[in-house]
């Protein structure tokens, strides 16, 4: 039976090849949309790693005249102390500009066992950072006041980097080299992953370094954890306080939750546009397949009438036509899968291969359903052909 159907498809290969290419292309489109969507969803399902509600970020720039590191340190530590003393503030932390959900990124590379690992997000933080963001410590410890000693080569890394370097082994106390392998740095703690690029992006490798006093020249963000009842009136007080403390600086207060919404758009908008375009293309293709199959049946009335006349049931006729369409779909899917498999094999776009595999399976099911739906009605029509009428036309 199957062999026979293949033969019939082969006999009309010119016409069928176009259909195959069309189904193949729709498969690729669906595969792209599903991969993108699934990847975004699987990232969305992962925990954020921090509590971003009721965390504000104050942007400032250091405009103090003094170049003396000690007086800068005194000033900024006093500033943080004063902010923390405000009734609605729970904690505050001065950090480098790459706070979560900001467009600012800093990255560096490290050397471990002769291997260069690059593109590690580099955060400059102080001892209040985890409490301000409610960042969980997985192993070891965070920095404390005693670590503010010049020349300390210690670091806290996140779980992604830990797994990249050590797998399941313990990371505490291990040592790696900095980007040019001149300094040896000891790991003192491992923290939870933060999705600092928003809900839909996978957490990346990161390390958190304690800044020394000279960094106050260029640090430009204060993260402030406030109590839930902090309102615009309080924000305006905090703003005035900052503006008066740093007279020559431009001050802005942002809410991390708003920044997250804005950042998520970078993923969501392309996904929505892609889905709309794909939906339109698929409707187009579905209509096309439907039309071509329908026409084919009208052209093959004689053949169908003959089959009915020699005793084939209506069901078996429509079964044959649906099967033919499914075989066409299978042929395209075999070619399509060949291309799709290259994505996880060659590790294109750096997505996890599970995403590609699931996306591929879903796309295959989707295409089968699409072809089935498009061929059911023409098949049913074929079943309704009366042999007497059809043969009479010949």
């Amino acid at each position, binding site marked *: 039976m199957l062999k026979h159907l293949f033969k019939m498809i082969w006999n009309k290969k010119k016409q069928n090849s176009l259909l195959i290419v*069309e189904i193949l292309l729709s498969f690729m489109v669906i595969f792209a949309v599903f991969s993108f969507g699934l990847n975004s969803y699987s990232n969305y399902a992962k925990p954020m790693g921090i509590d971003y509600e009721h965390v504000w970020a104050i942007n400032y720039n250091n405009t103090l005249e003094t170049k003396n590191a000690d007086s800068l340190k005194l000033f900024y530590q006093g500033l943080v102390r004063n902010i923390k003393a405000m009734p609605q503030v729970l904690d505050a932390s001065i950090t480098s500009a790459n706070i979560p959900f900001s467009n600012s990124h800093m990255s560096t590379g490290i050397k471990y066992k002769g291997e260069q690992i690059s593109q590690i997000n580099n955060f400059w933080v102080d001892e209040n950072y985890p409490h301000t963001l409610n960042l969980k410590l997985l192993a070891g410890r965070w920095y404390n006041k005693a670590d503010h000693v010049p020349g300390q080569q210690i670091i806290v890394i996140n779980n992604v980097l830990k797994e990249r370097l050590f797998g399941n082994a313990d990371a505490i106390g291990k040592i790696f080299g900095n980007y040019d392998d001149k300094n040896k740095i000891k790991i003192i703690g491992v923290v939870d992953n933060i999705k600092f690029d928003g809900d839909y992006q996978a957490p990346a490798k990161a390390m958190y370094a304690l800044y020394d006093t000279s960094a106050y020249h260029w640090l430009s963000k204060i993260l402030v954890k406030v109590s839930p009842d902090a309102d*615009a009136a309080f924000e305006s007080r905090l703003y005035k306080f900052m503006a008066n403390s740093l007279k*020559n600086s431009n001050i802005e207060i942002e809410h991390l939750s708003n920044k997250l919404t804005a950042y998520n758009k970078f993923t969501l908008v392309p996904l929505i546009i892609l889905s709309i375009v794909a939906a339109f293309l698929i409707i187009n293709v579905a*209509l096309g397949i439907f039309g071509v199959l329908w026409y084919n049946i009208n052209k093959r009335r004689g053949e169908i009438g003959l089959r009915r006349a020699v005793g084939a049931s209506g069901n078996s006729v429509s079964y044959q036509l649906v099967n033919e369409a499914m075989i066409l779909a299978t042929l395209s899917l075999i070619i399509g899968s060949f291309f799709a498999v290259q994505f996880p094999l060659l590790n294109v776009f750096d997505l996890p291969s599970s995403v590609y595999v699931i996306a591929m399976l879903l796309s295959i099911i989707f295409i089968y359903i699409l072809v089935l739906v498009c061929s059911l009605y023409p098949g049913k029509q074929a079943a309704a052909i009366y042999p007497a009428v059809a043969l009479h036309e010949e």
Partner: protein
Amino acid sequence: MLKNYFKIAIAVLRRRKFFTFISLFGISFTLTLLLVMTAFIDKVINDNYPDKKRDRSLYISKIELRGKESMNASALTYYYINHYIAKMKMPVKVAISSGYGSTNTYVNNRKIVINYKYTNADFWEVLDFDFIEGKPISKQQTDNAERVTVISEDMKKEYFGDDKSSAVGKYIEADNIKYKVCGVVKSLPITSYILYSDIYLPITTSKTKLEADKGYMGNYGAIVLAKNMDDVPKMKKEYADIVAKLPIPGKEWDHVYSHADSYIEGYVRTGSETSSGMVYALTAISLFALFVMLLPTLNLVNVNITRIMERSSEIGVRKAFGASSKTLAYQFIVENLILTFLGGMIGVVLSVVVMYFINDAQFIANLNLSLNFTVLCYAFLTCIFFGLLSGVYPAWRMSKLNIVTALKAQ
């Protein structure tokens, strides 16, 4: 002859309404998609509000230092602009403005985010903002570092409420300082990021000392205006010569790059010197367009072939009476073009509707898409391309049809 083809085409279209629907659906939706995309790009790139003198302006907004292992790119310092760009001979005016920064202000316990930009006096002469009220910041006001500001229409609405009274003379507080409003201008969409801002302040009121940073990397950009269009290439050359002679600021660097760009070059500059942003943008757009068009075209080819086979008897008869393959193919392509243009017209109507909804929803504030002559030209070209692409192969198949089999099929 053409009239005849037209009649036949309409008759064929009406015969199989379902196929006609599929074809028209495919064409019109593809065209709508492409038209909205073109309108968007056209708006972002070709809309010349407020820089109406774009054809004799060059934009200098970036400087890049490159070493063996490191690179650093950023906007320029005021010092750099003042010492190198302002001393150029060709420009008649040099507009200087900072990148936009944001700050907050709190009005009646309501928070307003304000984007601000520092501008020099020439800025208001190089650019032609539409003033709804008041007038630009004058040279004297800039020199005296007066706390005056030009605000956008949207900011006026947000800060002072919806009342019709003039905002000129009122005070707006930003960054804990009160500025007196001297003018209100028509708002810009954020996509024209080089000039976008909510409030424009005199450069002399900037909180940091302008000439304090004597390096290259800062937060300012310049627009240089030539006397006439012929001077633009010379101006470009003059700037390139200046950059070639720039002292390199440190041992870690070996090259310094900066360009005086036309608006579009500047808009798509990726920050990488080795590859042009223009190439990236063009490839991305054409790949997208091709991809969007490929499936509907294939679909159309499929449907067209089916249709031709349906008409095999007609073709057989015409061939038997002496019509050449060429005539038949020509007829079919014309028929297909007629179909495409019909779909195109529906597409244009659809895209007007879609654009209306996009504008209405204000996805990007102040970005109003519209159907203009350029966009329509693109639509026309797309239609021809579409019609030919989907018509040629079926026509070729048709002209190959054997007379005997075609006639026998009946």
